[in-house]
């Protein structure tokens, strides 16, 4: 079980421009929301701490109950304890069932229970009636719910979500938010979420990670951040002066 994610002086450049330069520690099983204006490095940070992209420099330490792994980007076992769901997740051109079962098959889980596990998760996201439908033919809300099911069925230690409700209608947004909250409550595992919606950050998260121009400006409890941000930038962001 992953207990801690510690990023030290992580740096990432694209085309000679530094888009990320920060340190971060995630060591609680709550919901962390990464917020900040466009281009502040939120998604880059998420891809790095979810082991999908290497930083140009710095150190990423992931610790479970017994040992710490430094820059474990090639550690498949560790990678399989972490799942990232992107905004507009790209589903495979296959049925909902086959999309959801994909990660389980990679982990060579007991094949007798696969169907049951998949059906249970698909039911949880309210898509039982669409289980044999080609996933790419679903509406965008249903596709995103399939993507969430594809992640939740794997029961990850840490779930990363990159703007999971962007451009969804209010009904699907609410459904996905409830799924996230229920899963966190039931499983007690860490969720790190990038969002542009301050309302979502306020209602979903326990902690806020506020980023600006590739740096983490604040990491504090959600209620404290929204009541009284410690920094001038945080205040300006909440009041909509920077976006």
């Amino acid at each position, binding site marked *: 079980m992953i207990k801690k994610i510690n990023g030290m002086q992580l740096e990432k450049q694209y085309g000679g421009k530094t888009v990320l330069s920060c340190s971060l520690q995630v060591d609680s099983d709550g919901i962390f929301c990464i917020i900040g204006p466009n281009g502040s490095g939120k998604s880059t940070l998420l891809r790095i701490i979810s082991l*999908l992209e290497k930083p140009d420099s710095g150190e990423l330490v992931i610790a479970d109950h017994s040992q710490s792994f430094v820059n474990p980007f090639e550690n498949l076992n560790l990678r399989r304890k972490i799942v*990232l*769901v992107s905004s507009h997740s*790209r*589903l*495979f051109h296959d049925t909902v069932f086959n999309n959801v079962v994909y990660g389980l098959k*990679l*982990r060579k889980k007991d094949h007798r229970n696969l169907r049951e596990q998949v059906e249970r998760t698909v039911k949880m996201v309210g898509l039982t009636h669409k289980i044999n439908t080609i996933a790419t033919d679903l509406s965008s809300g249903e596709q995103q719910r399939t993507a969430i099911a594809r992640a939740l069925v794997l029961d990850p230690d840490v779930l990363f979500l990159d703007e999971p409700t962007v451009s969804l209608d209010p009904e699907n947004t609410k459904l996905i938010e409830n799924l996230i909250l229920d899963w966190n409550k039931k499983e007690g595992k860490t969720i790190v979420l990038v969002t542009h919606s301050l309302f979502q950050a306020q209602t979903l998260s326990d902690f806020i990670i506020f980023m600006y121009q590739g740096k983490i400006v604040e990491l504090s409890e959600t209620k404290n951040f929204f009541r009284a941000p410690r920094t001038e930038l945080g205040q300006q962001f909440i009041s909509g002066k920077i976006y």
Partner: protein
Amino acid sequence: MSFIEESFFKAFSLIFSVNTELFQIIRTSLAVSGTAMILALLVSAGLIYLLEFRKFPGKTLLITLINTLMGLPPVVVGLLLYLLLSRSGPLGVLELLYTPTAMIFAQAILATPIITGLSFAAIRSADPAIKLAALSLGATEFQATCRLVLELRYSILASVVAGLGRLMAEVGAVLMVGGNIAGYTRMMTTSIVMEADKGDFELAIALGIILLLIAFTINGALHFLQKRT
């Protein structure tokens, strides 16, 4: 009855009378092209693996070479293979000239760049989110690429069909290295050229019809496969 009508009538008679010579030619063509196709697929799979997963000097040069060879003139392949396999050539000792094996090599050389080039281009231009999705669900780089190939199955199948089309329609190279020997290296395309040259159009037309039918069947199968999946 006009000359063309008469030729077509005789051609259909040949097909329906199960003419031994005709079916021998079809058998040789299918065996040579089928084997060449398998060889080209294996080499293409190896090349795509190399290009996708391995870093080596000259990789860009290899990609450029493959793309250039996609338009390789068959007679040039025929000429090069002829020089290599002829008695005084470096591979003359193998005694492969004027054998089906030489024709298989010629066809495989022609089809491989097409299959490799088009498939690799499809993989490279694919939505990177497909691979990222597989990786984020715990796939290894190889498993993610396999998933990507599965997602691109129509484009890759189309490149295989393009390669097969090149094989089936090929004349120049197989004529040079196969020699068009009756009952041994005579193929549909080389027979069509020879029979038309002799003025015996019925066999040429019969073979043309069969070639078209084969092309139609392959494309029909691909279309069926696309609809089914």
